[in-house]
Every structure is written in C-alpha cells, then in structure tokens.
C-alpha cells in the first residue's frame, strides 16, 4: 500500500468515527435528567406556548429520538450546537473561546514532558538497573501517582503565596486588558496586535499550571522512552556501529535514540486523552478558562447542549491527534504502510 492510499484510508475511517462520537455524545447527554425546555428558555419564555413550540420544532423535540439526533446532526453540520444554558451564548462560540486556552496549556505541558522525559528515559536505559535508572523510575512513578489538583494547590501555596514568584492563578493578570480576539490563542493574538506585555504576562501565568500538568505525562514519556531505548540498544545495528568504532554517546544519540523515539511519539498521541483529563482538574485549580473549566461548569449545571458540544469537540480532537500521529508514524516507518 502506498503512503498516499494509507492516508486516504485513515482519513476515510475518521468519518464513521466522528459520526460515532456524535451518537455517543447525544446518548450521554440525553441521559441527563433535565428538562431542555425549562433549562434552555428560562421561566418567562417557557411560559409562552408559542416560543416553546418554536423551540421544540427547531430542535425536533416533538419528534422521536432518532429524528432528534438527525436534526442535531443537521444543525451540527451547519456549525450550530445549540445555545448554552448557563452562558446564554451559542455553544460553538463558547467552545471557540475556551478550546484555545486548553490547547495552550496541554501543548505546553506536552512539550515540557517531552523535553524532560526523553533525556531522562535515555539516561535510565543507558544506566539500566543502576542508581540513575532507579531514580528515573521512581521519579516517573511519583509523576503518575501525584494527584494533579493537589500538586497544583501546593504549587500555588509555595510559588504564589509564600515566595511570590508566580502571579495569581489566571490566564492573564486582571488589570491587563486582553488583546483583541483574533485566533483565540492568547500569545498569537497578543503578538499579532503588538501587545508584547500581554504575551509576556500570559507566559508568566502559563508556567505553573503547565509544569504541574506535565508531571503525569512526564512519567509516561520517561517510562516509554526507557523501554523503547532498551529494545533498540539490543539491536544488531547498534552493536555494529559500536564495533565500527563510533563513540558510545554518538551511538546512543544518533543511532539508538532516533529509532527509539518512534513508539514514544505514538504513545504521546494516545496519552493526549489523559492530558485532557488532567487539564479539567488543573484548569479548575488555576482558573484557566479552558475547555476543562467549561466542561466542569456545564456538567455541574446540567447544561447539556454545552456538555454535548464539549464531548464532541474533545473526542474529535483526540481522534484527529491520533490520526496525525499515525500518519507521521507511517512517514517515518515504512513497515507500517507495507503491512
């Protein structure tokens, strides 16, 4: 199979997956015991039969469930996910405002855990079963065992309250006017509109939550890199390179690590879901206005159009991230597409 055909096949497989995601979100959000009319329209509008009828008709609520789903899908394809009960805004607009913040924090955490985890895993593998390996293993185990929300609070107490090194938990200082909304990504919007002060302020706010969030994925990356590295170091081409007289570290970095990275990248894609789960709690601790905070507030206020929209977006992001990872994998490892 050529690379081109592989990609086309994977993209086509994405379509049933995305439809499945909408079905599952629809089912999940319909198990929520809330009256959509009362919650969507408010008291005065709900008392007006004409408005109620119009609302029911618009969302197909007077139709059987499968038709309601089709109506939802139809609206969804036109970029309409309904109106959030709590914010009174279109869900699509809400998501557009919240998603970038989550992407910022998860990408930052992912980068941090890769930057620290890859060398740590390499060192552990090279010093297999020696103290350094044990230390790396314990570090990664502590990383996956620490409650992120607790670590966040401890970090706030130490770095904000006691030492005063970190700013108050938020995405931007309260006394700073945010840059105009262009892409929704604060650093990009700030730089595009020449607001370097806002970009710097954002960075200062980002560090603490990103470090806390990265603790979990750091553990996973380290362990994966170690395992993958151990496997590669046993391969014959590594021994050949050593026998040719290539220095030890050149073999480790140039020959072994490059190949050991491939399975780690796949794992990064799969652990993205865990990162998003972590983001939900971290965002509530650091009042970071992302999708996690939005999902939390909509779930606790039974705001089901918002929950449904969040579910669809989050699951789709996960599926698409993994598609990208798989395609990148196929590019770097011809065995995948031949197989």
């Amino acid at each position, binding site marked *: 199979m050529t690379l081109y055909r592989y990609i086309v096949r994977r993209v086509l497989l994405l379509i049933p997956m995305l439809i499945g995601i909408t079905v599952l979100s629809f089912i999940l959000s319909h*198990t929520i015991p809330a009256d959509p009319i009362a919650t969507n329209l408010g008291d005065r509008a709900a008392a007006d039969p004409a408005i109620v009828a119009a609302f029911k008709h618009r969302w197909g609520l007077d139709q059987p469930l499968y038709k309601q789903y089709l109506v939802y899908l139809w609206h969804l394809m036109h970029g309409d996910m309904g109106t959030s009960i709590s914010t009174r805004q279109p869900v699509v607009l809400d998501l557009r405002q919240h998603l970038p913040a989550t992407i910022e924090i998860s990408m930052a955490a992912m980068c941090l855990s890769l930057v620290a985890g890859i060398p740590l895993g390499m060192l552990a593998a090279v010093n297999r079963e020696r103290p350094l390996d044990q230390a790396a293993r314990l570090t990664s*185990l502590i990383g996956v*065992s620490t409650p992120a929300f607790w670590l966040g609070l401890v970090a706030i107490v130490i770095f904000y309250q006691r030492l005063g090194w970190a700013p108050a938990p938020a995405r931007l200082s309260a006394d700073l006017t945010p840059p105009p909304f262009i892409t929704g990504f604060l650093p990009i919007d700030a730089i595009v509109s020449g607001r370097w002060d806002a970009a710097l302020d954002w960075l200062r706010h980002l560090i603490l939550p990103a470090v806390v969030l990265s603790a979990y994925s750091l553990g996973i990356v380290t362990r994966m890199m170690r395992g993958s590295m151990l496997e590669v170091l046993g391969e014959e081409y590594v021994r050949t390179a050593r026998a040719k007289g290539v220095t030890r570290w050149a073999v480790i970095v140039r020959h072994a690590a490059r190949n050991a990275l491939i399975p780690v990248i796949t794992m990064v894609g799969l652990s993205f*879901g865990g990162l998003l789960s972590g983001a939900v709690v971290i965002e509530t601790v650091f009042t970071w206005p992302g999708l996690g905070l939005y999902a939390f507030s909509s779930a606790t206020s039974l705001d089901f159009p918002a929950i449904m929209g969040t579910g669809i977006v989050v699951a789709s992001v996960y599926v698409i991230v993994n598609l990208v990872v798989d395609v990148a994998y196929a590019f770097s490892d011809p065995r995948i597409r031949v197989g």
Partner: protein
Amino acid sequence: MRAITAAESTAPQGATAVARPARRRRLLPKQLTGSPLALVALGMVAAWIAVAFLAPALAPYDPLSQSISARLTEPSAAHWLGTDPLGRDVFSRILYGARLSIPVGMIAVTLAVVLGTVIGGSAGFVGGTADEAIMRGTDLMLAFPTVILALVITAALGPGIRNAVIAIMVAWWPSYARLVRGIVLSLRDREYVMAARALGGSRLRIFLRHVLPGTISPVVILGTLDVGHAILTFASLSFLGLGPPPEIPEWGSMIAAGRNYLDQWWISTFPGLAILTLVLAFNVLGDGLRDLLDPRYRSR
C-alpha cells in the same frame, strides 16, 4: 535474550504470560520481593489496608465531630495534622478516608475488569461482524477522556460514591475489553481448544472452561496495577465535588475543602500526601507486576 523483533514486541502482552510453562509457585513473585523499593511499597499498601481496618481504633477523634473552638488549629500535640475549617481533626479524617478510597478503587476496577472481560472476551470468541462492531464501540469510548466521561456520567446520575464508581467503570471497561479480546484471539485457535471442539464441547463450554481462564492472570495483574489509578481518579472526581457529600471523610474532598484556606496549608497538604503514598505504593507494585507480564522488561 534482549534482542526481540518488532513483530514479537507488538504481540499482546498477556499472550506470552499465558504461554509460559508453570514454575514452582511462590507466595509472591520475585519481581515483588526482589527489589527493596517493591518491598517498601508492599509494606505501604499493607499498612494502608491495616489503617482502613483499624481506623476506629487508631483515630484520636471522631472524624465527623466539629468543634468551633478548635477551628483551623495548626498541627500540634493535640491535633497531629491540625484541624479543618469546621474544627474536625485532619489526622482522624485521613485515617477514615482510607476506609473509603481503598475499597472504592478496588470495586471500581473489579467492575470494569468484569465488564471488559465479558464484552471483550465474547467479542474475540464470537468474531466476525459482532467483534468488529464491539471493538469499534470500544474505540469510540476510548476517544472520550476519562474525567470528561466521568463528569458527564456523574452529572447525569448525580454526585455520590456509587455514581462515581459507575463513572469509573464506564470509562475504563473498554481498555480491559481490548486486552481480553487480544488474549482470547490468541487462545481461540490453540490446539487444546481445537481438541476440546473436536471432542464435541459446546461453544459456551469451550469459552468458559478453556478460553476464559487463560485471560484471568494477565487481567488480574493489570487490574491490580490500576487500583492506584482508580483511587486517584476517584479523588479527582471528589475534588471536583462529584464524589461523596463533604461531611464524609474523603481525601479528594478534604483537599477541596482546603482550597479557600491556603494559609492553613495542612488542610490540603496531608490528605494529598495520603493519596500520593498509597497510589505510589500501588504503582510501584504494579510496575513490578508489569515486568512480570512483559518479557521485554524481565531480567534474564
């Protein structure tokens, strides 16, 4: 031998563990008793389980009794780990918290394992379209991050211990289903299964008597190493207010109770350390068990 081909390394982990010939049985596998770290972890888990059983005898105070005069007192001889905003003894509440977290973690994982084994096992054994449909379904479930799924489920069912357990179960069964299906597929066409079939065993009997037992050991091991993770997830849900009501001593909600009292650092810090030590101990044990399952990490 360390060298291993890519094909072998991508084989389902459990298959190799099942195929291994029986050895002299030990009470505990060498991976658990060999390293000092694992021994410490084993002791830690045992200690926490003992605490859970003995909490009423060990706790110096009633975990529910409030005392206005003793609000927010610092750790002292009277209150080893201080008191919370309602004057309840943090140390006693932590001890009682173990009575909730450990069983909840175990029950949630057990339910997820049973559900995953039944669904994944039957999918793998039946095969064909049913298998395909079930596995696509699990793929779909796996696309939803655990906490988001659990948020929606607890929002739908209402907060509470039972619903938090249900949420964890619903979020986790797909990964066990995948694992069990993989093992069942590798066992289905083994000679002993074919022999049983040739002898005229019914499909159900073959599945229950000959295929399913082969999945038990790897699934039990993986389940054990997930108990720590389940405890952590339960604490996260409680922290978000989706667990038990606040008066019940639970570590996650205790941490949440300290959020507005950052100057009184002890309210949040100690329950967090309780979670960390228990989950870390489970994970260290699980790490050893994982080595047992995965021949790549097994020492010669």
